[in-house]
């Protein structure tokens, strides 16, 4: 008969993917309960914050690991979003150069952060890339919260800043220590994106405002096509 403590620990383990639990749950429960034999503890005890934190961390690691579809998708979303930001930056710089107005300081920092984060992640400097991507997310979050606070339509703030927030979150979560190296092909994609950004403004004025929305759409399509939630992978595949 299962004790309350065992039931609570099994409930905690539900944060892990079903395929992982099928492989490891009995083993994990056995270790967890090995030292907890007191009857009162078995009736009223709980897993504890440390064990809960370690299990949540394991859940994230399992889902976003090097060979996991969810992790692959997250990293693709991050790089796609940052590339979209680079293209938007190229468009912005081109418009600035043509008009001769250099007043949007916040926009400049935004573009620089995206470029640095992209370069750092592709170069394998994950810690730098994550920190800068986090700053990029903050730079998007502050005006988004402000827009909502002053009564600006919240859906518009979400549409405008949402892609940057998602990009930043994906970069921070996806490029952990165990993430695989980024393909060097991204170095080739970046200049193509920059040239395309400049050309789009020169030949099609007005397109720049739609670039990040396009990147957002592409990232959503990537997720929809790969469907990470439907993956069933055995532990031995790690």
């Amino acid at each position: 008969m299962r004790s309350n403590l065992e039931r609570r620990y099994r409930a905690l383990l539900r944060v892990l993917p079903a395929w992982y639990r099928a492989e490891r749950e009995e083993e994990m429960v056995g270790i967890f309960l090995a030292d907890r034999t007191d009857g009162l503890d078995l009736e009223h005890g709980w897993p504890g914050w440390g064990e809960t934190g370690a299990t949540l961390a394991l859940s994230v690691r399992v889902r976003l690991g090097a060979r996991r579809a969810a992790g692959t998708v997250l990293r693709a979303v991050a790089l796609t979003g940052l590339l979209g930001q680079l293209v938007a930056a190229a468009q912005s710089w081109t418009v600035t150069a043509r008009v001769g107005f250099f007043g949007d300081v916040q926009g400049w920092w935004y573009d620089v952060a995206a470029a640095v984060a992209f370069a750092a992640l592709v170069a394998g400097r994950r810690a730098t890339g994550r920190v800068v991507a986090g700053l990029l997310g903050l730079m998007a979050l502050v005006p988004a919260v402000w827009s909502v606070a002053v009564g600006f339509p919240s859906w518009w703030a979400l549409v405008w800043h949402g892609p940057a927030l998602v990009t930043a979150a994906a970069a921070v979560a996806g490029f952990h220590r165990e993430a695989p190296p980024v393909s060097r092909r991204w170095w080739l994609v970046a200049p193509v994106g920059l040239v395309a950004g400049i050309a789009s403004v020169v030949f099609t004025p007005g397109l720049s405002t739609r670039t990040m929305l396009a990147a957002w759409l592409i990232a959503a399509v990537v997720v929809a096509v790969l469907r990470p939630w439907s993956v069933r992978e055995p532990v031995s595949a790690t």
Partner: protein
Amino acid sequence: MSEQVFLVLTALAEEPLHGYAIVRAVDGLSEGRTRLRVGTLYGVLDRLVAEGLAERDREEVHQGRLRRYYRLTDAGVRALSAEVARLSANVRAASSVLKARGAL
């Protein structure tokens, strides 16, 4: 190599162990300084297996519960040896500096 990974590799270097025995061994090796949570243990084991440093050995049922044993691979022995050499060199360097300062 993190301290947790180092201690798990060290624990497995002697003989194949199951999860609970690894937790106990790490506790003993670190003299109680490092306590492996179950989630942490399996994160480390997944990583070691993925990197080819450890592998599954056998499974046993003990008091109605599954026990899965893990053992070190040859690559795991080499990785642990390399880490021991690196740490030893660091200890020698720090010791000589402290001796010169008269603090050791």
